[in-house]
């Protein structure tokens, strides 16, 4: 038996028909024994589904799960060890990045320095030699003193890297100043010196802040 209402019986059972459809289907059920029987069977299927019971797996699956968890735990530990082995402190990373900038800046200066045929300032342009350095020098001096006082709070590896990179910065500053003696109007050299000084101040401030947090 299959009439136009048979395929709507599940929706009726689940309360998903609108009132008009529900009314029409109920009128049909009053006169159709087959649909009443089918509806009763569908209702029993739904009840049976709700009463289904869970069953344990035939074999214990835990050993496979535990083995996989152990493998992942081992891999995770190994990853952590590798990360730790190659990790640097914030101070070390900061100092290393500044050293890299300075080295690349110094390289560019060597490549484009006067006398190599590439002008660093336009002919006839008068650039006033830097006059801010004395104030900055004082600030740097204060920060260096602070670093000397604070460095006992930092781990020795950080102090070693910071000191090494400060030496690189100081050397770059000295070279820039020496070069400016010969070409005081060079825009590039003035900017390079200013940037190097700024980075030195920045490094000293950050390292002191780091030491204060330790």
């Amino acid at each position, binding site marked *: 038996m299959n009439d136009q209402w048979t*395929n709507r*019986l*599940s*929706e009726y059972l689940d309360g*998903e028909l609108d009132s008009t459809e529900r009314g029409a289907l109920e009128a049909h059920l009053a006169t159709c024994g087959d649909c009443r029987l*089918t509806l009763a*069977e*569908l209702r*029993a*299927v*739904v009840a*049976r*589904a*709700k009463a*289904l*019971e*869970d*069953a*344990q*797996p035939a*074999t214990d*699956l*835990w050993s*496979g*799960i*535990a083995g*996989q*968890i*152990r493998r*992942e*735990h081992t891999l995770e530990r190994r990853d952590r060890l590798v990360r730790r082995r190659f990790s640097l402190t914030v101070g070390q990373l900061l100092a290393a990045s500044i050293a890299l900038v300075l080295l690349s800046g110094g390289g560019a200066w060597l490549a484009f320095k006067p006398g190599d045929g590439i002008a660093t300032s336009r002919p006839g342009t008068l650039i006033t030699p830097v006059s801010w350095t004395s104030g900055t020098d004082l600030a740097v001096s204060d920060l260096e003193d602070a670093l000397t006082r604070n460095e006992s709070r930092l781990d020795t590896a950080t102090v070693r890297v910071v000191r090494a990179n400060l030496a690189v910065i100081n050397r770059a500053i000295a070279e820039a100043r020496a070069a400016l003696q010969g070409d005081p109007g060079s825009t590039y050299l003035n900017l390079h010196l200013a940037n190097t000084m700024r980075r030195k101040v920045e490094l000293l401030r950050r390292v002191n802040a780091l030491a204060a947090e330790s």
Partner: protein
Amino acid sequence: MLEDTLTADSIAADSALAASGDASAFERLYRTHVARVHTLVRRMLDADEADDVTQDVFIRAWQKLSTFRGESAFGTWLHRLAVNVVLARRKNVGIERGRFIPDDGPLGNVSSKPVTLELSMDFEEALARLPEGARQVFVLHDVEGYRHDEIARLLGVVPGTSKSQLHHARMALRRHLER
């Protein structure tokens, strides 16, 4: 009632311990929930996949425990994870099959004609023999209590398709009620 509360508390405690890496606590969670997960998986997929997929569900649960915030019961969270793993498996298998057999839609392997099953089967066996799509809709709706709009979203079909497949499944199963 008190026993239920104590059980819920111990499950909540074990889920917190497991999230912090305690494998013993996770084993207790496994023991409590494995029957439910395995039965769900067995009904939704082929029986011979049930062990592998159940293990996969628990391994993923272990990996994702840090994302379980205790807003729902651990069992509910695990159950939803299991459904997602099953459906992802179904999708992957469908892609594999699709390399060889043309597919005609998310429930393409489900006939729109009434399903007929041998009368000698019992209810669980008849359920297992239903076409995959109709079986999954039936399990999700009538056994697990999902709504048609949720099933449609999970399976990537329209709710009307879910309703139609549910009706075909029920019609096929009604002859296997008490065997």
